[in-house]
């Protein structure tokens, strides 16, 4: 590949309890490579102390989420060409609304604990998680195939959510979408978890989550659907039918 662009990367740095700052790296890159490739180049050739999370490099694992020029991106599938120009600048920051571990690495522990609590299913039949807007509907015989879930638990939606910024108690879009995927279906503990002030009623319908989601989850739509499920459960309970 030809490295015919020069791009300046402003990279957030923070070690231990020290205050954060930005370091500047001028790097020759191929514009068709991805932002994560550039970060890996910086680590390989410029600064071995840089820490960043990554694993699959093809958008199935969800590890490499960052803020790129202020917008949440899965960096392994974000072409450099799509976020800057030759001679331009790219600002890289860790995701918001999570504690910083080091440099670009954040602690996603709270999100994973909550995903576990709402029972988000990591694998499920295609019938249980059809595409939101399918190009063509799946064949009946394919509905039985087992698929890895759409949500890759990257945390981008929680970073982008302005409501999550106001309180760490808010479950956040990924978790509420996880509850919707699991389905309420008379599950009282799950209902109690989401039907509360830090659950799905905290959402202000900003839809940032859906705009940054790299993986077809559309969390905002799922939160709206979960509200419907909760209202249905309340009405059934009112009439003593739950």
């Amino acid at each position, binding site marked *: 590949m030809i490295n015919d662009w020069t791009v300046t990367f402003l990279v957030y740095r923070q070690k231990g309890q020290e205050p954060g700052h930005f370091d500047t790296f001028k790097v020759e890159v191929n514009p068709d490579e991805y932002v994560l490739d550039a970060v890996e180049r910086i680590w390989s050739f410029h600064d071995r*102390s840089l*820490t960043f999370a990554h694993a699959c*490099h093809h958008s199935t*694992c969800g590890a490499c989420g960052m803020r790129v020029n202020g917008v949440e991106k899965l960096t*392994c599938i974000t072409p450099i060409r799509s976020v800057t120009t030759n001679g331009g600048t790219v600002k890289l920051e860790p995701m918001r609304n999570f504690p910083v571990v080091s440099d670009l*690495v954040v602690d996603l522990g709270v999100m994973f604990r909550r995903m576990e609590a709402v029972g988000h299913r990591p694998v499920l039949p295609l019938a249980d998680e059809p595409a939101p807007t399918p190009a063509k509907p799946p064949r009946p015989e394919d509905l039985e*195939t*087992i*698929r890895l879930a759409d949500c890759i638990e990257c945390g981008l939606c929680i970073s982008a959510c302005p409501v999550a910024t106001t309180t760490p108690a808010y479950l956040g879009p990924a978790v509420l979408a996880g509850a919707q995927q699991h389905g309420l279906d008379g599950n009282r503990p799950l209902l109690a978890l989401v039907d509360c002030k830090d659950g799905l009623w905290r959402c202000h319908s900003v839809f940032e989550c859906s705009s940054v989601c790299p993986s077809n989850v559309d969390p905002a739509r799922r939160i709206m659907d979960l509200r419907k499920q909760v209202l249905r459960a309340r009405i059934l309970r009112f009439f003593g039918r739950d």
Partner: protein
Amino acid sequence: MTKPHAIIIGAGFTGVATAHDLALRGFDVTVVERGPIANGTSGRTHGLLHSGGRYAVKDKESAIECIDENMILRKIVPDVIEPNGGLFIALTDSDLAYGEDFIEGCQACNIPIEELTPQQTLKLEPNLNPNLLLAFTIPDGTFDPLRLALAFAATAKSNGARFRLYTEVEGMMLDGQGNVIGVNFWDRKNNQHGKLRADIVVNATGAWAGELTAMAGAKVPINPTPGIMVVYDQRLTQRAINRLCPPSDGDIILPQRRMMVVGTTSYEVDNLDYVPVLEDQIELMHERGAELVPGVRQAKVRGIYTATRPLIGAGTTGRSIARTFKCFDHKESDNVDGLVTITGGKATTLRAMAEKTADMVCSKLGISAESNTKDTPLISYRQFYALPD
């Protein structure tokens, strides 16, 4: 009696699986990893849960390892696997000729296959090349690479193993006679340097194994061999689609979630920490992929990346090297005690690799403890983050 302390260098597939095995056998385990979990070759696998079919003709040892471990992983870690099977499809007369050896090889390795006519095949997978001549079903699957590693790591953690991530081994602690008694490390999270002693050090750094053994003056015949993967924004098959031919460039399409991966190639590099994509190989993947599933031509590219296989063998290269794994006791090969290297192998065989390594560690330390990983279901991969450090 205090527990023996094992340091495992590397939190890729072999590292996390060895941590799990040794923790179950009662060891005090510390995993030292320079980045996050599975950031090297392991994370970047295309995610084929091998049935062994790919190796059944020329490399039966690997094929048998694959089918055995495939069945075990389906049982112990179903949460990370799409168990939808695979197909080997023939497109040319030479593919058909290879099919004869393929049937024989699969029978010899106990890999269950079933022959399908073109009509039956296209009914299962309508997006396949309509000119296909013959197909075999095979118990392939797809796994999520990071989540597979995390499930082993989480279970190890729940049994007491500690993980020091973003911590790079800078050198070996030696006893004055050249034997390894621990590691010197650099914690890149906090920018601090330190030392850690151990009764045994396991080098599970895969393609990087040679760099680590060199720190102890030991050698390992490792041949790092990258390959390219092209990812498309569309899923055109339910099953893994293999070309019925000897292992070659672009011989597989792996569907996963709502995308698919076409792989791969085989070349050589000097710097393992940053492996660039070779432009001409992208077109080769489009071409070879479209031979199997013509819709690949119209599908949008979602990502392109490389992964470096840790092949064992000096002198020979690429495709001709067997894909089996090997465990090295450096006392025997280099007269350096306290250090064991595990490398080679496939993602699918991670558990077996760990069992062999832990067996070697136990025999070196004179400990009699059996592996119990075959029958131990792993806990949720999310627990790796949920459990406290």
